[in-house]
């Protein structure tokens, strides 16, 4: 994977938040890269900084140090106006955890999905509607839902609409922040299937999740973030079968599986003690 030029590279990124005495460092020297078309999981617990890191990539938070480059373009050097122009190209898109809150409750699904193109401009209304229609087909949403409000469709349909919006600009990188944790099982499976089918040479996916178990099946590689530091980056099967860092071990050992049973309680207790001492 190192021989291909990376799509996204994050080099030595530090992010702080808060001001004055309450200022804290959220991310310590984060270093990783995503190749074109790769599916990567970014796993960490609440407060581990995974969302902060994702927000830094899309420019919602400004890193203090380091460099974030997309296709060799240094994003950390962009001015606000250049950021807007970069975002209008839609090459990086973001899907939020809760589609009920990431779609404007007073806008129809059509208008919400079309918004990135409306902002970018240059297309007629009819052209945009045609594109939205086609996108709806790709995410297996019925066209009759176009005129509905987010509150009038199911959670799974909402998240599909949110994904349709993200895909409309043909992104090269799609960042998904816990995309299935607000859904029920049937919809979780369908959305994951959809994303799995979507991943290909044209679009790379970055899954952010606190639960390795919920996304492991579709990731190529996993980045484990613990207390603001990347503690392990490896292929998914190596992470699961041969975790190196104590936190990764605990993470893998804690993920509920159908087979594990309650027998490894002592083992988990030992890992917790080890991690507490570190």
């Amino acid at each position, binding site marked *: 994977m190192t021989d291909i030029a990376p799509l996204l590279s994050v080099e030595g990124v530090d992010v702080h938040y808060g001001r004055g005495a309450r200022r804290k460092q959220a991310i310590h020297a984060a270093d990783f890269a995503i190749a074109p078309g790769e599916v990567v999981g970014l796993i960490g*617990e*609440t407060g581990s900084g995974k969302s902060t890191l994702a927000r830094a990539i899309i420019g919602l938070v400004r890193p203090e140090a380091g460099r974030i480059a997309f296709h060799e373009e240094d994003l950390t050097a962009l001015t606000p106006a250049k950021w807007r122009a970069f975002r209008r190209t839609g090459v990086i898109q973001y899907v939020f955890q809760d589609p009920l809150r990431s779609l404007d409750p007073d806008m129809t699904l059509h208008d919400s999905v079309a918004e990135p193109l409306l902002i970018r401009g240059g297309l007629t209304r009819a052209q945009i509607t045609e594109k939205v229609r086609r996108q709806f087909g790709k995410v297996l949403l019925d066209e009759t839902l176009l005129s509905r409000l987010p509150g009038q469709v199911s959670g799974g349909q909402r998240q599909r609409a949110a994904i349709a919006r993200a895909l409309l600009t043909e992104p090269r990188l799609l960042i998904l922040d816990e995309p299935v944790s607000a859904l*029920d*099982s*049937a919809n*979780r*499976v369908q959305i*994951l299937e959809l994303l799995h089918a979507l991943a290909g040479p044209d679009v790379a996916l970055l899954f952010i999740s*606190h*639960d*390795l*178990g*919920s*996304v*492991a*099946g*579709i990731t*190529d590689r996993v980045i484990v973030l613990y207390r603001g530091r990347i503690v392990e980056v490896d*292929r*998914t*099967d190596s992470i*699961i*079968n041969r975790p190196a860092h104590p936190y990764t071990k*605990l*993470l*893998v*050992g*804690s*993920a*509920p*599986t*159908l*087979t*594990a*049973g*309650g027998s490894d*309680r002592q083992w*988990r*207790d030992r890992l*917790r003690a080890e991690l507490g001492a570190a």
Partner: protein
Amino acid sequence: MSDTVLAVDDLTVHNHLDDTPAVSGVSFELSAGEVLGIVGESGSGKTITCRALLGVLPDLFEVTGGAIRLLGRDVTSLTEREWTQLRGSRISAVFQDPASYLNPSIPVGKQLEEVLRVKNRLRRKDARAKAMELLAAVHIRDPEYVYQQFPHELSGGMLQRVLITTAIAPEPAILIADEATTALDVTVQAEIIDLLADLAERLGLALIVVSHDLAVVAQLCQQIIVLRGGLVVEQGATDQVLFSPRHEYTRLLLEEHHRFGLERFLTSTEPRP
């Protein structure tokens, strides 16, 4: 069957708001130290079942059929007064979002102490000592410190521990954990699951674990009920449900784990096609 603590027979709950059955035909028996899992999505009737067991059904919901025998006593016809005596002391519960069940302006230890004074009729001094003892029993490393914290100063996992402590303080026979680990991080969820398993073993507590995640339930339970739309679609011993599911919906739940969960890698380490 002298150690059966809870026997539910053909429980039916009617929803007068929509005039639909909310739950129908739920039956199970639970012995001391045994763990039962109820799996279902929001709207499957799992929470309504729990509420019926606790005698706290929402407005316009009503038990219209079946029997609930709690420690040998039929509780479907109890008065509000009798329920108040029973609830908390014989059957207790913890829910999702522990912070909303604690008063934000009182230290958590004081709130635990209050339960001990009301339910266990302990004096102030004894209650404090007992509170410390209980906090230590749920593996809280520094009970003195946690005792004095306000809810907002503690993490979700710690709050859930405190609530579990509060729930088991009056030494109930049955504890219901309704999505008690849902909002927590995976590692913290495992801690709470381990704690519940430990309590069931050590105290002989009968547990009902309710979750939308089949795997969470599989960690703990000897028997599993899968609910969907208020109906029991699958019921049986854990192994049977996991390895020879009869209903399509159960298979869907299992499939999610096999395809997207760790199982995929644990059973085979071949790279992704």
